[in-house]
């Protein structure tokens, strides 16, 4: 249809899709390494299985669709999807959780929509939510952290057994996440001041010394990675700041109204799913709005829904649901929120229109 290239520019910014994905992965590295160390061999195996499954799923889908495989694999997006998914899984989940999750993410949520750039919903979050609904038991089985090489931690072989054969007797150390525990206690009408004594302290939440998903260990390391992405201009501040600020304001407001029934803002912010969501999931370029104003709206929506789901809905954690719901709203946001065109007003009419006889 189109004539050969005859237009510039003949120079280009250093940005590219693989570089963008690479920066994001690099930013995830501190929190990931911490998580892998923190939860030991089973976590390492699950992480590897999930990522390999994601890449294989991408290659197979492309092959079936007769699309070129190599450039798509090299763009790093499948790796990133698998990586993000792994970070949201319980660290000791069985291997098939990772495999099924990766297949859901890549095949259903990404390739069936037309591949990179075409998907409406964040693939990793689609997979996480589908897993949570389909396999609630496996997806809510958390263990207190047992760092690699610590006396109680499973060794290499034991780790293999836990991940691949479901063998291992660690029921004794199973533990709820902080928000999960608080939600259960509040549900039993136990006042917060009393329930709080049963959970990890705020500072250990920040450092990541509590039970949780693989990559949600340390809010501070995720914040560090996110800050670096901001500094590198891979993401802009609009989504994370809008999301965090909304959560902060809502949590503070309700906590101030009734401090015995509403968890304080720090619990909300330092629950590491918040940081992972705000900097790495909600900021997914493909599934978030393209304008700055739209991004602020989107981020605020994610924050609002996260708070609402955590506080009043059936799940202790709401980031994944919130992001998916806002993903669904992205086309609408992009339809209604557009930049003002130079020389035109908001309605697209030329500025201070001259009278018809002049024009």
């Amino acid at each position, binding site marked *: 249809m189109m004539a050969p290239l005859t237009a510039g520019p003949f120079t280009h910014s250093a940005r590219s899709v693989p570089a963008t994905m690479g920066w994001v992965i690099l930013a995830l590295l501190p929190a990931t390494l911490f998580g892998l160390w923190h939860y030991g061999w089973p976590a390492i195996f699950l992480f590897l299985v999930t990522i390999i499954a994601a890449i294989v799923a991408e290659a197979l889908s492309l092959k079936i669709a007769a699309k070129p495989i190599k450039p798509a694999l090299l763009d790093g997006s499948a790796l990133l999807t698998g990586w993000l998914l792994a970070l949201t899984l319980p660290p000791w989940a069985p291997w098939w959780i990772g495999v099924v999750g990766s297949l859901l993410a890549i095949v259903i949520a990404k390739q069936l929509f037309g591949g990179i750039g075409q998907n409406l919903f964040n693939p990793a979050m689609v997979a996480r939510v589908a897993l949570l609904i389909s396999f609630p038991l496996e997806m809510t089985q958390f263990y207190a952290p047992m760092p690699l090489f610590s006396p109680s931690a499973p060794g290499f072989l034991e780790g293999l057994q836990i991940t691949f054969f479901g063998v291992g007797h660690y029921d004794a150390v199973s533990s709820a996440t902080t928000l999960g525990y608080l939600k259960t206690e509040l549900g039993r009408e136990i006042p917060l001041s009393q329930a709080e004594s049963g959970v990890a302290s705020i500072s250990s939440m920040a450092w990541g010394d509590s039970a949780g998903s693989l990559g949600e260990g340390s809010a501070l390391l995720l914040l560090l990675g996110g800050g670096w992405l901001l500094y590198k201009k891979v993401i802009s501040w609009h989504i994370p700041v809008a999301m965090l600020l909304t959560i902060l304001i809502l949590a503070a407001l309700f906590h101030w109204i009734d401090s015995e029934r509403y968890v304080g803002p720090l619990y909300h912010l330092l629950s590491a799913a918040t940081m992972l969501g705000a900097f790495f999931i909600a900021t997914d370029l493909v599934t978030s709005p*393209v304008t700055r104003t739209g991004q602020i709206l989107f981020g605020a929506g994610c924050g609002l829904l996260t708070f609402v789901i955590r506080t009043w809905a059936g799940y202790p954690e709401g980031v994944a649901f919130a992001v998916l719901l806002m993903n669904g709203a992205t086309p609408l946001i992009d339809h209604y929120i557009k930049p003002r065109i130079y020389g035109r007003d908001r309605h697209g009419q030329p500025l201070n229109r*001259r009278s018809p006889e002049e024009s």
Partner: protein
Amino acid sequence: MLKLFTLRGGVHPEERKQLSSGVAVESLPLSPLLHIPLQQHIGAAATPMVHRGERVKKGQMIARSQGMISAPVHAPTSGRVMGVGGYPAHHPSGLLVTTVTLQPDGEEAWHPAIEPLDDPFALSPKELAGRVAAAGIVGMGGATFPSAVKLNLRQRYQLHTLVINGAECEPYLTCDDRLMQERSEAVISGVRLMAHALGVERVTIAIERNKPEATVAMQQAAAQWPEITIVSIPTQYPMGSEKHLLQILTGEEIPARGLTADIGVVVHNVATAFAVHEALYAGRPLISRLVTVSGGAVRQPKNLEVPLGTPLQDLIDYCGGLSEQPAQLISGGPMMGQPIPSLRVPLVKGSNGVLALTSREVSADTPRPCIRCGGCVEACPCGLVPLEMAAHIRSGNLDSSVKLGLLDCIGCGSCSWACPSHIPLVHHFNYAKGELAARQRQQHQQGETKRLAEARSARMEAIKRAKREQLLKRKREAEAKKRAEEALL
């Protein structure tokens, strides 16, 4: 200090001006053959006035302007006309255009009509504009709009300010920078003449901050003229776009489809001001220009003063030739310049750069799918949503892309530059604009055909009616005659 306003969007491409910015302008020796195209401006092509074999003098008009928006063309030197005919155009297509080929005789004999003027300020604004028109001066920043048309705007608009564009925001290009450093007096003189022609009381000369020497030189040259202000503006592409330059300077926007004159301002390029000075003080028409020859494949990047019509190969040769096979030859800057099919094509009035870029410099990556990152939205200085416009164009829905503002796109290339998927967005927009223009032409043609057909049937109808009336009249006359005869009987 003048308060500056901010520009939304825009990008910061790597400047690469250091390749040629330190090199003083050199004059290129005459080439054995000059090829002078008759279309070196926006608007109707000039009409040739010379024939094969004819001898012409330097500065002699060899093609006259035709129509409202057009410019005449002059002989860059004295010599013999070798032919008037098709020659590869200074255009990506390389299609043939009507070109006067001139063999210089080396005498450089000026045409007798060219004489210095004592006091151009004694001329009326209209006469001044007339001389600028006769000198064939067009916008030298690359847009090549006939300058005299812009100087005559005061007849229809209330003007108060002349803005001189010395931004030179394209990477690599430094010829305006050198011009302002080396010929600042002449530039200021041209600026004052233009202000006189326009009847404005204020002049603002805007220079990007990456040209401090030029700024100082221009400040010194303009020191005695209080009406002239030199303003340092941020280095930001596309500052050379007159609408965006005005936004920085005034905070005002030009209404869509409007002109800068709508807010009382006229913008001219610094090189145009220099050409105006030459035309009015020395009487010289536009027959040469400054151009930057640069790029990684050029051995010694330089700024040259070159007679129009010189084959680009001669410019490259003068700069030590090419050190490697260039990946891209460009006329103009790397953002908005045009690819050129070969170095045979001649230098024209709008050429501010000849670039031979290496494959490392052009970074030609194969396009990937759009990941909706919004980089193009952020980069667009016109507030458009390039990714959506391109998606509509790809699916053949041109009308939707127009609704999104396709026709407000200035083609600056910021979006393509920023796109991490290397999607040639500007190419999509150019294609769509071309399609729309073709569609409009077709519609116009259909309308014209319909109008002619209707006119014809109306004419036929009128003839028939006239015949019928004639017949009736004759019949009535006959009857009257008959009655009269009967009465007589």
